[in-house]
């Protein structure tokens, strides 16, 4: 009888039975799919975008964090501070990275200081000039001092290298060093910390500014008013060119992003970037 329920009123025939089963299955499948999709956007992948100065450190955090959380992928992209802030605002990225303070029109986002970074003024290692004052740096970048002879070097033209309009590093440099002065229009413009360092490493008569964490043996960071650019001097508040690295989110972050932020601010996360030359937040 069990095989022949078809004729009995109130029971479904075989075909109807199958249709209901398939329908239920589809309904279940879609609900499972949709719920897992919903979860994946919060926990299976995190997109971080913005400042190229913060990017290498965010990469480091992401690398270590992903090792601990299998199945989670963190995608770190450059693009610059302004683009990162924009991306966080629009929701294109979960986290935006900025290497400068937010402008008034960008406020309204949640911001977390994840590290402090020194700004180093760099020259070629063979350049005899070891020390410059803020005023000298201002005038070099403004194009008023054009020869190394005027600041104790050889009688050679100074090749000024700066960052492009809108860069966080440029913004921080303008704010902390230039004040109201403008960077010379004749300055060479490059679009990343790496290319600025590359040019200064190759051109014996050039000068540029990059993140302190990215200074290596191929360039020389000059002393600023007699103070060496070092992590210790920043912690002692002797070295003046310091800026915050920010992570910004639009509104309260989801659980996955929050957990990552907690890791970044944890002792382990902060020690990671301290090894790379940044100043951890808890020391400030």
């Amino acid at each position, binding site marked *: 009888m069990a095989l022949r329920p078809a004729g009995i009123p109130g029971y479904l025939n075989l075909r109807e039975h199958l249709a209901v089963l398939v329908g239920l299955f589809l309904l279940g499948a879609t609900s499972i799919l949709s719920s897992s999709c919903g979860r994946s956007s919060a926990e299976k992948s995190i997109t971080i975008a913005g400042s190229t100065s913060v990017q290498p450190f965010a990469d480091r955090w992401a690398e270590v964090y992903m090792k601990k959380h299998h199945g989670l992928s963190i995608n770190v992209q*450059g*693009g*610059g*501070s*302004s*683009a990162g802030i*924009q991306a966080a605002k629009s929701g294109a990225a979960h986290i935006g990275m900025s290497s400068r303070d937010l402008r008034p029109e960008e406020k309204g986002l949640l911001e977390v200081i994840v590290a402090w970074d020194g700004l180093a003024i760099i020259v070629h290692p063979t350049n005899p000039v070891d020390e410059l004052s803020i005023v000298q740096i201002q005038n070099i970048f403004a194009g008023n001092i054009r020869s190394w002879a005027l600041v104790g070097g050889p009688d050679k*033209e100074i*090749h000024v290298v700066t960052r*492009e*309009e*809108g*860069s966080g590093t440029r913004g921080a440099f303008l704010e902390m060093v230039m004040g109201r002065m*403008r960077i*010379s*229009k*004749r*300055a*060479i*413009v*490059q*679009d990343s910390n790496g290319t600025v360092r*590359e*040019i200064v490493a*190759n*051109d014996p*008569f*050039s000068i540029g500014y990059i993140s302190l964490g990215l200074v290596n043996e191929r360039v020389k960071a000059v002393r600023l008013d007699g103070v060496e650019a070092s992590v210790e001097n920043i912690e002692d508040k002797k070295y003046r060119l310091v800026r915050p690295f920010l992570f910004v989110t639009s509104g309260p972050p989801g659980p996955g992003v929050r957990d990552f932020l907690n890791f970044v601010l944890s002792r382990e996360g902060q020690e990671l970037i301290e090894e790379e030359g940044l100043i951890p937040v808890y020391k400030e």
Partner: protein
Amino acid sequence: MTSLERKESLIRITLLLVAFSAVSVLVMITFFIFGEGTPIMLRYGLKKFLFNLDWFPTQGSYGLLPMIVGSILVTSGALMIGVPFGLAGAVFLTEFSSKKMRRIIKPVIELLAGIPSVVYGFMGVVVLVPFIRETFGGPGLSVLAASIILGIMILPTIISISIDSLEAVPPSYREGSIALGATRWQTTRMVMFPAARSGILASIILGMGRAIGETMAVIMIAGNAIAIPRTPLEPVRTLTSNIALEMAYASGEHREALFATGVILFLIIMVLNTAANLTSRKRGR
């Protein structure tokens, strides 16, 4: 209507739609660029936009003249290098070399066109820029470096189109000239060149279009300063590098100004392409 005719018209309509989709993309790009770029040009003043010397977009000053001059300088520099070498190469390959040699060398030159521009830029940074810095002084990243690299980049365009147009000259022209007692060089200079003139001109204009539109290699080697260079050894910024350098960061009016830069570039390239089309159409007649 037979089934064959129906099939034929179906194919025609499909191909028409495909062709139209390519055109519609162009139309969309045009509308988009002009839509985004023209408001600021009108608001800020076209004259100021084109002739002001100060480009400080975050402080509301949008003078494009240094970049327009930069593009012109770098492109004419590239032509000064690319045209003589390119034409000499084309003449050698059509008039003075054996057919076998041409069959080997021409594809090799055309291979040059397939090298990505970032590779040219990298070669420029690693080899050319230090060489210029050490021999002539200055920072090395300069009009000169950009002109040389772009000159090399437009060689394949100039050479292969010039070869095609020299080869298209009827052999009787060359034979007639030589029969009259002219030397090879006289024949090339006085008969072949004038006969292939429009094709050669088109090759130069297309090379110019490539040079003016090139971005990656130029960003890497031109130095990108926003001042008009006083010597070929000073850095320079072109229209294309201006857009590519600042686009990632730009918002609001700054972004519009970059689109307006695109409008100017678009107009320049349109004029060049139309000129190329007109000259090569003349050849067809």
